[in-house]
């Protein structure tokens, strides 16, 4: 640790905590086949962020106050997710079309608002763009502690509602029939995903936070069929990606942290796709070869 300066350490710990939180929470999105809802959610935060900024200006508060911006992000993200669900439920359009339409229209609205902000003489919009691509390297110790708290909250909520979340992830129909309040559990889960997305935005940006929610969870799925193990592995993959990515980017000036974090996660995904014993390529083809030999040995061919 002698080699690592204070600033680097802060970024390292913050990115690790964010990876841990996003990896765990993302498991439920992937298992519920909702991976791309997080895509829509994160793109849809932009109009909320800019509206919050403009509201702040109008009210005379500093528009760049972080709680205000994050509240705006959360509100428009939630509206987007609810809109997708409403379109899916009330119209003949399928979920993919609903997600794509909502994602692009909300983001378009954000871009229009952003161009308004840039024309305002009083406004300093420099910080707002950081939300699109993230600014990991600019993390201060307060933010890192916020990310640490996020990881703790996520882990605690998952631990508390483990049974409920598991039911919802694997057999929603049964859960509803058995009298579980699936609507409310779903809402709690979406709240958790929104929280992670919104808090992670300014670290890795709104495109790459999607990767932290999807990739570690999809990676963990190759290694296990057990939810508890999957949560631990996904959290681990996320944390390692965050830590290694932040470290690499602090060593090499032209490696932007957010993108490197995602590339580490993507590499772990492809490595797992090939070597994971349970559902990886090698494991599966070894098992198939063994089965074939066993069948041939018994004289069953076909």
């Amino acid at each position: 640790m002698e080699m690592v300066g204070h600033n680097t350490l802060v970024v390292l710990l913050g990115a690790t905590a964010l990876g841990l939180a996003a990896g765990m929470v993302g498991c439920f999105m992937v298992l519920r086949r909702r991976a791309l809802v997080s895509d829509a959610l994160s793109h849809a935060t932009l109009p909320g962020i800019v509206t919050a900024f403009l509201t702040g200006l109008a009210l005379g508060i500093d528009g760049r106050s972080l709680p205000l911006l994050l509240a705006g992000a959360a509100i428009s993200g939630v509206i987007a997710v609810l809109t997708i669900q409403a379109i899916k439920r009330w119209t003949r359009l399928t979920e993919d079309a609903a997600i794509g339409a909502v994602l692009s229209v909300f983001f378009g609205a954000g871009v229009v608002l952003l161009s308004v902000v840039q024309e305002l003489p009083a406004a300093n919009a420099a910080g707002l763009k950081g939300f699109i691509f993230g600014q990991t390297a600019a993390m201060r110790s307060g933010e890192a502690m916020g990310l640490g708290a996020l990881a703790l909250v996520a882990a605690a909520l998952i631990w508390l509602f483990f049974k409920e979340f598991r039911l919802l992830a694997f057999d929603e129909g049964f859960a509803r029939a058995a009298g579980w309040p699936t609507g409310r559990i779903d809402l709690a889960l979406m709240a958790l995903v929104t929280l992670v997305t919104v808090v992670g935005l300014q670290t890795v940006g709104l495109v790459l936070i999607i990767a932290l929610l999807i990739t570690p969870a999809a990676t963990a799925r190759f290694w296990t069929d057990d939810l508890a193990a999957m949560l631990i592995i996904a959290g681990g993959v996320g944390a390692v990606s965050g830590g290694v990515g932040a470290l690499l980017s602090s060593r090499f000036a032209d490696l932007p942290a957010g993108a490197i974090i995602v590339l580490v996660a993507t590499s772990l995904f492809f490595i797992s796709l090939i070597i994971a014993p349970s559902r990886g390529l090698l494991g599966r083809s070894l098992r198939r070869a063994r089965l074939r030999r066993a069948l041939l040995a018994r004289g069953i061919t076909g």
Partner: protein
Amino acid sequence: MTLDAATFLSVDLPALLAALFACLSCALVGNFLVLRRQALMGDAISHAVLPGIVAGFLVAGTRDTVPMLAGALTAALVAGVMIELVRRLGRVEAGAAMGVVFTGLFALGVVLIEQGPARQIDLDADCVLYGQLEAILWLAPNGWSDLTDPALWATLPRQVVQLVAVFALCLVIILIFLKELTLVCFDPALADTLGLKSGLVQHGIVGLAALAAIAAFEAVGSILVIAMLICPAATARLYTDRMGTQLVVSLLVGGVTGLGGYALAAFGPSLLGYDMAVNAAGSIAVLAGVILGLSILLAPRYGVLARATGRAMRGAAA
């Protein structure tokens, strides 16, 4: 803002034409993505082309269009193949497979942008997101009478010519293969038994979408590409069950949104008394969303209101 003919012809007309044809190409091709429930392929493609564009620039060393478009097309193909491989070999659900692949490629693009030569020019991520509709200029015409001169039309900006050509190409391909495409969209099993390779047609659809997306990308940016691939087709879906009508309605919606969205962005604020223009690509996307939203509510047969009153009437009759 006073609107004189020379400014309109050299600034707004080329941008309007670019917006119109970008929207028409994407709307046309988007029908098949929406009908095949592949709408998010458009999303994935438009994020995944980023590394290709930057790599094209890094290899060629100039901001020339051809290498960048070649890079984008390569990246789109790589993305398509990788998504398919991850789905098949890894048995990963389609949404997660797309998510993993396109975010990975996007991250790669962000890293490439930060490398030496790419940094020095304005190949920043902004133009990838928003496009440069406002930067397409046609300096030749000075007044309305100039438009009758055919020699002048030969000086149309390259982006506009390119978008018109891609739209024509997409239209021709789709008209030639309309029967096959319709069959694969509505009954892939029947298509397979008839000896039509639905998998091959599917690849063709994704390839066509990539072509339209990349041609439109440079002018209008990635958000507008996603909006235009999905919203007009989804809107048309609410009005009809026939393929022909679906295509015509989506083209109408695409065209109206392209022209209307640009006009709103360029002239709307000044009509309200503000001396500014807002981002045109974003405004077109928002208009597409408004039209889709109104259609969801008001469409005669499949709209929410029509369905609700239909239910109420059936209830009253019973």
